[in-house]
């Protein structure tokens, strides 16, 4: 009975009690949702263009962040370090295409998925051998302070993350919509064979897509690294991005953003208000359960392409 009250009555009383706090929870949820979206975005880009579900996205985030921190520890200025890391991500994309994807053309999606799990381990290992596995502090000059506005607490880092994410999504949208390469990417995403037959070079398209995903990983790595420090657990945020993808649909860029926001808000609100009833730490699985429940009713996600299959 007490449990029922904790689940169905008290949380709502709490919300009604202090709406400002509720709003604050929602906003902090939205801001952490942006961070999930950034990771999910990398998945969507690759999945759209090559049909590969890239499990190694989290490892790419870690790898980029580690490299950046490592370079900065060597005394390289921030801007040059970022540029070098970006260059490295492009090189990585070329390597992945040459050593892996090229040999796996025409394989089933699940085989490609498992190959990226292998890639995940390679990147984790290489990154940690090259730069060590201690927790590192990343500071590229984004201020991390809290300030109060209209009775609510904000963090400048979260706000910058949201701003950067917005800029990135807009840039990507423009890139996809208005450049020749973007159009080619959309063509490949739509139909591999048709794209090949009108002369779009599939292999270089894959390199471009993986590079873009690598750059998105770098941005995500910078923001996550500044927030929680560069450490191995960054890999696990890739796992957090999966429910985001399910909610938003695997093929939709806006879906990744909105899915991330929903998961971010849902997690925060549930943890703050319903967490005590379940003994806390439900953040770990809530997103998955939400995604699972969602899958039962809308398997293609909020914005995914509708696939009609009756088996």
């Amino acid at each position, binding site marked *: 009975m007490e449990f029922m009250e904790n689940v169905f009555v008290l949380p709502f009383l709490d919300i009604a009690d202090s709406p400002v706090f509720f709003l604050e929870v929602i906003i902090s949820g939205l801001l952490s949702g942006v961070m999930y979206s950034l990771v999910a975005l990398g998945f969507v880009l690759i999945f759209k263009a090559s049909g590969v579900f890239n499990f190694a996205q989290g490892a790419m985030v870690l790898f980029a962040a580690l490299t950046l921190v490592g370079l900065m520890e060597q005394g390289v200025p921030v801007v040059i370090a970022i540029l070098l890391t970006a260059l490295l991500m492009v090189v990585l994309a070329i390597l992945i295409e040459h050593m892996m994807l090229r040999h796996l053309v025409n394989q089933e999606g699940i085989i490609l998925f*498992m190959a990226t799990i292998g890639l995940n381990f*390679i990147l984790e290992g290489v990154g940690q051998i090259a730069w060590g596995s201690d927790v590192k502090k990343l500071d590229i000059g984004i201020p991390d302070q809290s300030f109060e506005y209209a009775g609510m607490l904000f963090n400048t880092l979260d706000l910058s993350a949201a701003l950067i994410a917005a800029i990135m999504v807009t840039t990507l949208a423009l890139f996809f919509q208005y450049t020749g390469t973007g159009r080619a990417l959309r063509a490949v995403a739509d139909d591999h064979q048709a794209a090949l037959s009108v002369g779009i070079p599939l292999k270089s398209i894959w390199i471009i897509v993986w590079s873009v995903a690598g750059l998105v990983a770098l941005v995500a790595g910078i923001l996550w690294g500044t927030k929680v420090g560069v450490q191995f657990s960054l890999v696990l945020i890739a796992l957090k991005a999966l429910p985001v993808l399910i909610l938003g649909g695997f093929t939709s860029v806006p879906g990744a953003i909105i899915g991330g926001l929903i998961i971010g808000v849902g997690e925060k609100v549930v943890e703050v208000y319903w967490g005590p009833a379940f003994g806390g730490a439900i953040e770990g699985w809530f997103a998955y359960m939400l995604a699972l429940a969602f899958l039962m009713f809308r398997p293609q996600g909020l914005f995914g392409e509708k696939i009609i299959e009756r088996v």
Partner: protein
Amino acid sequence: MFYREAGQFKNTYHADQAIFPIIQDRWFMALVLLVAFVVIPLWANEYWFQAVLIPLYIYAIAAIGLNILTGYAGQVSLGTGAFMAIGAYATYKLCTAFPDLNILIVFVISGFFAAGVGIVFGIPSLRIKGFYLAVATLAAQFFILWLFNKVGWFYNNNPSGTITAPPRELFGIMITGPEAHALTRYYVSLGFLSVMALAAKNLVRGRVGRSWMAIRDMDIAAEIIGIEPLKTKLMAFAISSFYCGVAGALFIFCWLGSAETEAFDIFLSFQIMFMIIIGGLGSIMGSIMGAAFITLLPIFLTNVPPMIGIPIATDLSKHIEEIIFGVLIVFFLIAEPHGLARLWQIAKEKLRQWPFPY
């Protein structure tokens, strides 16, 4: 020359349908069993039992379970660790609640518990497939471990939060608990592996196994020829989880002795998945070979470089191990998607003619 079926005539359907229709295969299996049951116990010491052989057999059971689901029925699962945890915790609860119950029966009952939960988390597979299903099984992985961690009832509210194998005996011999001899635990794991591998082998070549493969290869066609996807998929989930559950129970009771939920985290699920990828999707023999490979590789990496004079720091060797795992997985997917099992098959083909090719 040494491996050829020429001249081996089968006069009855019974002989034709034998698991190992070729006499050399029968000899080979007999030899393997002889080595496993007689030669190894005579020769191995405590270290080998505890570090290599017992985990190998237990992982092999889990790998067979996952292979049934992923390799035969085509449903990807990242929740193996959670299903193993169910087996372990169910065994612990049953063991402490009914101290007189035969421990082997407890293992089997725990398997049924895991099977039940497996069915529940298999239900989404009816609507979703591929990656989506993989994510859905992740929900099982995180939720179940959280549950075992949070609800004290599962570990009898003991303050350390771990489950410990209580001493249990069978025919006067300690099987579990701190006093059980490594040899006894070795025989228990080996016994389970032999029986369950044989059962799986029979299962996958019968009607059930064929319906799994039909669903895996093309679900629409399978449904048209009269296979019920609902029943078939859920059965795959149930049987796979049963295997994982028993493996999980042995994991704690015959190997680790005591553990927390962290022992069953997502990395265990990945490890079992690598076993079946490297061993060979859709092969019982491959599951065992994959388990052997993944268990032996770290031991090889930690022991061999110092032996030949290259000292490697522990954390470095851990990362190198990661890289080698990754490279091997990619390599196997590119070069030999059917894994070690396929290499074994090729070797047998070659043996037909070797050493006289004409």
